[in-house]
């Protein structure tokens, strides 16, 4: 496959590209979904193709084709250069790339149990069994369960001498219970509402213990129908680790993408409230806030050997003791900003152009625990598991809703409340972080559904997070 990628790069350069790279990607995805004890989809999808990138002047040209012959690759290479050259009608300043030493390397995801070798009957039996458990709870109308697995092989070649092979294996899934009342639905999910995904094999699924968790979430979904609404007010907000992960994703992860900061995503995804002139001085949050982008965390979803530009996976400080100190970069954006490329550029399969993507953007652990946080809270709400998420195009003004909440009074969990929501402004909100858990309560969450770019690309991102408390937050916003 290196020969196929090399043919594409050679053709692109021969036609005048200042730089070119190519990725041959062969990806297999298996998915099993189950609703109310019926396996409603069982699918296995394979894609194989090559994507070629060519830099001419101020623009990237990119061409992709689902044909792995060397002749088709060469045609794609020439097309990438020709497409980039057409951009000269609306030109900008000549683009440069920050240096990344070329390497010849291989990387493979460590895993214990090949998820594609585990029989589909075992997977189906698990999903039928856990939906039966959830349906066994009186009042549950819909019980869903799903598993997904990816096996991806990538061969990367650049005109600067990179030759990298990677084999990535990812596994994940979720279960959910929906209860339907008068003019409302209530849902509870496990491990969280977007599922939990990690690099690794079927051992990831076994670690969830879906059987043990199916009953409790089903009972909570039904209890929510008769629970009181979360009352509006300004109070202490305690978030479980999965909601902290979502909070990081939306209000930190996207905001620190250098392509957004530079205005490259302005029309669609938006820009960022961050200004490069403030790098190293802007207070992003309280001193408890320490965030890294770390693509080397074992088992986390956005862990790999090299990104899709051939830059090695690494850990980069993003926020240190509340101060903004780093960004998510690519070779092109880093060159403009005067930063070092952090290995944060990836593409969705062979057919899309690589772009700045979150790696594992997460919190470093704190010294507290959820138990301590609750015991030290006089008046607050504890919210768990995201249900809705909305944030503005500069990543400042957000409103998030959770599946379930509990009142916290005088250091104890009180009654369950439904439709809990909270809203805030990013740096003000993170500035109110006053307690943060750690140890075993720090979880490496993985999201497999992050949308960005045009045409749309779906990315896999990771977020380490622990239960946290924020003071004086507006909660209980409703229609």
């Amino acid at each position, binding site marked *: 496959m290196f020969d196929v990628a090399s043919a594409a790069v050679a053709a692109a350069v021969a036609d005048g590209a200042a730089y070119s790279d190519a990725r041959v990607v062969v990806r297999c995805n298996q998915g099993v979904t189950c609703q109310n004890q019926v*396996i409603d*989809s*069982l*699918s*296995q999808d*394979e894609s*194989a*193709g090559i*994507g070629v990138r060519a830099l001419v002047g*101020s*623009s*990237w*040209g*990119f*061409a*992709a*084709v*689902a044909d792995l012959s060397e002749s088709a690759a060469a045609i794609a290479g020439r097309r990438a250069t020709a*497409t980039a050259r*057409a*951009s000269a009608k*609306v*030109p*900008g300043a000549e683009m440069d790339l920050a240096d990344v030493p070329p390497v010849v390397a291989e990387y493979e995801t460590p895993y214990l149990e090949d998820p594609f070798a585990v029989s*589909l*009957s075992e997977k*189906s039996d698990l999903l*039928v069994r856990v939906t039966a458990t959830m349906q066994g709870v009186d009042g549950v*109308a819909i019980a869903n369960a799903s598993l997904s697995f990816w096996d991806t092989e990538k061969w990367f070649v650049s005109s600067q001498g990179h030759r990298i092979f990677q084999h990535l294996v990812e596994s994940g899934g979720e279960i959910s219970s*929906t209860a*339907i009342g008068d*003019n*409302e*639905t209530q849902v509870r999910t496990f491990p969280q509402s977007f599922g939990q995904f990690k690099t690794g094999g079927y051992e990831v699924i076994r670690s969830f213990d879906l059987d043990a968790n199916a009953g409790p979430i089903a009972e909570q979904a039904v209890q929510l129908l008769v629970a009181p609404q979360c009352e509006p007010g300004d109070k202490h907000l305690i978030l479980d680790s999965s909601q902290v992960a979502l909070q990081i994703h939306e209000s930190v992860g996207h905001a620190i993408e250098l392509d957004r900061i530079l*205005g*490259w*995503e*302005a*029309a669609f995804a938006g820009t960022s409230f961050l200004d490069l002139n403030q790098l190293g001085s802007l207070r992003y949050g309280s001193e408890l806030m320490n965030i890294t982008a770390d693509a080397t965390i074992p088992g986390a979803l956005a862990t790999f050997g090299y990104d899709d530009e051939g830059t090695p996976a690494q850990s980069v400080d993003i926020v240190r003791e509340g101060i903004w100190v780093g960004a998510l970069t690519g070779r092109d954006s880093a060159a403009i900003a005067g930063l070092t490329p952090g290995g944060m550029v990836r593409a969705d399969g062979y*057919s*899309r*152009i690589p772009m700045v993507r979150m790696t594992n953007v997460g919190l470093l652990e704190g010294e507290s625990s959820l138990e301590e946080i609750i015991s030290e809270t006089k008046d607050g709400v504890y919210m768990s598991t995201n249900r*809705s998420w*909305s*944030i*503005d*195009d500069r990543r*400042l*003004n957000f*409103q998030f809703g959770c599946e379930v909440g509990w009142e916290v009074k005088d250091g104890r969990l009180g009654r369950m409340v439904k*439709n809990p*929501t909270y*809203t805030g402004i990013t740096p*003000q909100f993170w500035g109110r972080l006053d307690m943060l858990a750690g140890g075993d309560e720090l979880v490496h969450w993985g999201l497999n559904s992050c949308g960005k770019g*045009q*045409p*749309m690309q779906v990315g896999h991102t990771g977020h380490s997070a622990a239960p946290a408390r924020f003071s004086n937050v507006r909660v209980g*916003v*409703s*229609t």
Partner: protein
Amino acid sequence: MMREGDAAEIADGLIAMVGERAEASVIISGGHSELTRFANSFIHQNVGENNRSITLNLSKEGRSASVSTTRSDAVALSDLVDSAFELAALRPRDPWSPGLAPQMATPSVDHYDRGTAGATPDERADVVHTFVEAGGGMMAAGYCETTTTELTFANTADQRCTGVATRAIVDGIHQTPTSAGSAHQASTSLGDLDGGKMGRLAAAKAQAGLDAVDLKPGSYEVVLESNCVGTLLIFLAFYGFNGKAANEQRSFVVPGDQQFDSQISLFDDPLDPLAFALGFDLEGTPRRRLPLIEAGKSRGHAYDRRSAREAGAESTGHGLGKSLYGAGPVPMNLFLEPGDRSTEDMIASVDRGLLVTEFNYCRVLDPRTVGVTGLTRNGTFLIENGQISHPVTNLRFTQSFVEALGPDRVLGIESSGRMADSDFGPGLSHAPSLHLAEWNFTGGAAG
């Protein structure tokens, strides 16, 4: 790109390989898509992809499986059939297995433009150039896209369909340091796109948005421009007029009930000349116009074959395959009947309210009520005494979309519409501007 004859040959070959051992359908989707992206007033990404995917859906005695590949050599196709049988054998019987679409004619639609299918990067760059130039030095960002979709369908019940469609879009913003304005145009033909006109519209919005002030959140009368309405319609379709949601009792729609203002009539019509769809769905069922709301009364739901069987209904030609992650049959060619007003007339009739250009990042709080939170973007303006008095900073809203269009809540509908952009993507709805009595804004720029 695969030639039509090649695709039909592959589809027939796969059907023959399955033979009488099972029920099977083959979907071969192909085509190509090119997108020229610009930001900071220059083209920074120019991409193109040739797509091909072969999907085999197989069902044997109610046990079904779906497999797909991008490879088309003999070994890959043989492997595809083997793995479909292997997977299906492991699956429990599906009580709602709907069987195959029978052989029947599908309507002929003309949503194809040869020039768009063959559009060059230079032609897209020309559209971008005129958009950028129209800003007179403002910072521009956006894209121009041309897409050709080719689909070949075959099943073991002798249903065969082929179709091809094109779509061209220019979408962008102009920005000042403190404001932005957007414009969007979509057509089956690249030749219809007027980058200069869209650029001037976006620039005018951005200019009008200079020096925006914060506005106190609360309930306001609103005039929603077409992109807002496009988002509103697709949320109603996704969460309400979706037969799977109805079967699961998650839908608000009660057929026959006056759930909306009497001025509201909504239908789904993949065959309309302005739509970008083919004449059949991914199950081989012919598509047709489907009324969803008539004079404020909900009429019914969209169905694919499986949800129809569960509901005791007929498929309405809304089989979408796996494209919406199992969301079900969602109407995606929506047309809101125009009214008799102009946007200017509607603004003139507002004592105090807001004109909203676009919604951003809308997410549902409860699907049953289609309660949604989102923000305004690219131009929000206060209207006082029938005139736009000044721009305001973006606002957050938390609003039930069903209630917003409820009886006596619609004060006017524009007399013409356009293929709108939306939070779910471009070109899914034809939407006029709407004048509504009330919209619940729950937060301003400062939270």
